[in-house]
């Protein structure tokens, strides 16, 4: 393991604990929940009496979030151990290649969702120069997609911690 290490700095010891991994997974769930309810907040506010403008949240505003979520689902469904298959002899029949293609699709969906959020924000809120309390709906769209990306990163990192933990235990 030590000879295969790529980076100059090693991971701190506390990152390899079960506690850090579980906290990461809980945190990822919390971040995803924050993303979903940020977007739901904009939708509820759009239909409530507080919204006096003529701008409303429609299906178009939800579409980037759906793509981000799809990307997150794909990315975190791939078995991470199959990615580095050059060190495993039993998974040589193109599994790593397939995993990389699927992972690429996942990251494309995630980045597409984030770009879509910015697009909706610019085209629907910035260009028609919507007044501020209604502008909040566009900002929340961007924030929600960014939170989904952050949640994906946290979940990915904590699942990699899990692999290190299992390796330490196998020794």
């Amino acid at each position, binding site marked *: 393991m030590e000879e295969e290490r790529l980076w100059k700095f090693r991971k701190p010891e506390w990152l390899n604990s079960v506690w850090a991994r*579980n906290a990461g*997974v*809980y*945190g*990822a*769930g*919390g*971040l*995803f*929940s*924050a993303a*979903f*309810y*940020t977007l*739901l*907040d904009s939708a*509820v*506010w759009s239909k*409530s*009496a*507080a919204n006096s403008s003529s701008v409303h949240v429609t299906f178009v505003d939800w579409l980037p979030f759906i793509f981000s979520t799809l990307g997150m689902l794909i990315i975190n469904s791939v*078995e991470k*151990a199959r990615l580095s298959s050059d060190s495993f002899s039993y998974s040589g029949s193109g599994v790593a290649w397939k995993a990389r293609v699927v992972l690429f699709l996942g990251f494309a969906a995630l980045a597409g969702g984030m770009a879509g959020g910015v697009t909706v924000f610019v085209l629907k809120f910035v260009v028609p120069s919507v007044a501020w309390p209604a502008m909040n709906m566009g900002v929340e769209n961007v924030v929600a997609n960014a939170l989904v990306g952050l949640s994906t990163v946290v*979940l990915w990192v904590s*699942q990699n911690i*899990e*692999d290190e933990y*299992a390796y330490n*235990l*196998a020794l």
Partner: protein
Amino acid sequence: MPQAGLKTIIALSFVLAVGFLLVILSCALWHAYYPLLVVATYVMAPVPNWICSHCANPDDFVESSGAAVLDLGRFCTGFLVVMGLALPMILAHSGIIEVPAMIMSVIGGLLIYGTIISFAMFFQEEQEF
């Protein structure tokens, strides 16, 4: 971790009662009963963890499918906990409930969830003996 004695149980039930009091007051004072959803959320929060811990095989270290199911349960629990915080904020932001009702229901919900978590911790500690 101290042994779960009678005093702990009394204190926990007292905290639980205060939490329910806050949530119900936040509903009844303003005649808007949406904050009751917070109670349902926090009662539901440990359920995914519990189900997935029964589905997974914790001895399975080589193939990490067991850990994946456990992680799914933890993800859903984290989702539900933040949902309990986010629901009153959404309702207050849209003017469906008042801001004091939001504060009361958030504090009450946190008290209820803290009671559930600490009760589960004490219970697990007893199981190990």
